């Protein structure tokens, strides 16, 4: 089979349409993940033992099972108990909760990485718990988290094709649909690959920059 440039230009608008949905799903999913991750992290670190334990189990369970199956579950099983989500929303929630478990780890690591001496210095200067969090711990914990979080953002972006399994017309699904009606796989799939590669090469550069900017607070 030959590579056909005309065909590529013909399908481009459809693919770009899909790319838009892909990016939208990524951005919304990231927002959900950021919040869900915070909830998980706080529950695990500060809630009473049984709740912290239960949270840990849930987090482990979500991390140990495939997002694809979770998406099927959200989309096809939840309606049985009366929760019927539109496809994109179901996808965003699936992505958000799945990656929220990763974000929770990053939050925890970021906070634990603040040296004990900092907590002690805050205590020795008589700051309250709240003041310690706001003025001492978080300003030091957050910058190093940023590259790790960005990393997961990129990973999530690359997993959006899964949403095609629950009928979201994102990039991959559009490509498949094009392939379905034209019986040509090479061009649409290659174009999807190129889109992903371009996006992640851009994000690699962006990430390097983030790492340089945020990796170490002391060096500023």
């Amino acid at each position, binding site marked *: 089979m030959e590579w056909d440039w005309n065909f590529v230009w013909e399908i481009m608008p459809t693919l770009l349409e899909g790319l838009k949905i892909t990016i939208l799903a990524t951005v919304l999913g990231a927002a959900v993940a950021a919040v869900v991750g915070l909830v998980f992290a706080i529950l695990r670190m500060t809630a009473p033992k049984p709740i912290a334990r239960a949270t840990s189990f849930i987090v482990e369970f979500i991390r140990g099972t495939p997002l694809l199956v979770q998406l099927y579950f959200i989309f096809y099983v939840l309606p049985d108990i009366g929760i019927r989500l539109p496809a994109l929303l179901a996808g965003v929630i699936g992505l958000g909760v799945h990656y929220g478990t990763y974000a929770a780890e990053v939050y925890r690591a970021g906070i634990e990485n603040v040296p004990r001496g900092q907590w002690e210095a805050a205590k020795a200067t008589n700051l309250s718990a709240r003041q310690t969090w706001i003025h001492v711990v978080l300003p030091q914990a957050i910058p190093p988290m940023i590259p790790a979080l960005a990393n997961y953002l990129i990973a999530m972006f690359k997993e959006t094709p899964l949403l095609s399994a629950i009928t979201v017309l994102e990039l991959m699904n559009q490509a498949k649909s094009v392939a*379905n009606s034209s019986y040509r796989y090479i061009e649409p799939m290659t174009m999807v690959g190129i889109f992903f590669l371009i996006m992640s090469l851009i994000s690699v550069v962006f990430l390097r920059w983030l790492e340089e900017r945020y990796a170490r607070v002391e060096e500023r």
Partner: protein
Amino acid sequence: DDGKLAELKEQGFARVAIANEPPFTAVAADGKVSGAAPDVAREVFKRLGVADIVASISEYGAMIPGLQAGRHDVITAGLFMKPERCAAVSYSEPILCDAEAFALKKGNPLGLKSYKDIADNPDAKIGAPGGGTEEKLALEAGVPRDRVIVVPDGQSGLKMLQDGRIDVYSLPVLSINDLVSKANDPNVEVVAPVEGAPVYCDGAAFKKGDEALRDAFDVELAKLKESGDFAKIIEPYGFSAAAAMSTTREKLCAAQ
């Protein structure tokens, strides 16, 4: 030349692509592949001297590219003959014929009887397998892309209908009947056949260039039809042998 057939004989089996859509194709609890299309293919290949078939389940959209990529030797999946498809693959003579049907909510609240009705009602959403005949019919009738939901498999389509995510789920009549009878849901009803949609027939689809194999297949298929064994295989599944025998590939591939 019949190099391809010799090859298959030597390896002892033919690789077929099937869908996961009873009664065209089915997988039993023990994992054995059955259904009308694979059963016919198995019998014909046996008579050609190829002992067995090995089936792999595939999405409709992936079947033709898979064939072209040499992933299977033949598609036996209820992939209806249409002119563009005839251009992409080499079909055998017709095997399974069926009309199109709708599954929809009880009482047909939107009054949908044809693909055109769906196009005309701006609220109606139709679900159909990606790359299948129904998707094409809907698009050709003028249903906009965003109201044609590509559904990965029959069970998902039915579920989406029950959950109110789509208003119509469209498949061939026998598939819809099988699906709806399994679901046993009083709130789902079937409209069959869909008005204005022709009856379609599938055939075994071979890769372009494998015409010698296809022709050999046709010879044995014709014998099978004549002997009456053909009807014995497909009629228990609900298909009509007479329908398949009353038309030809030539007609179906030319139809518009």
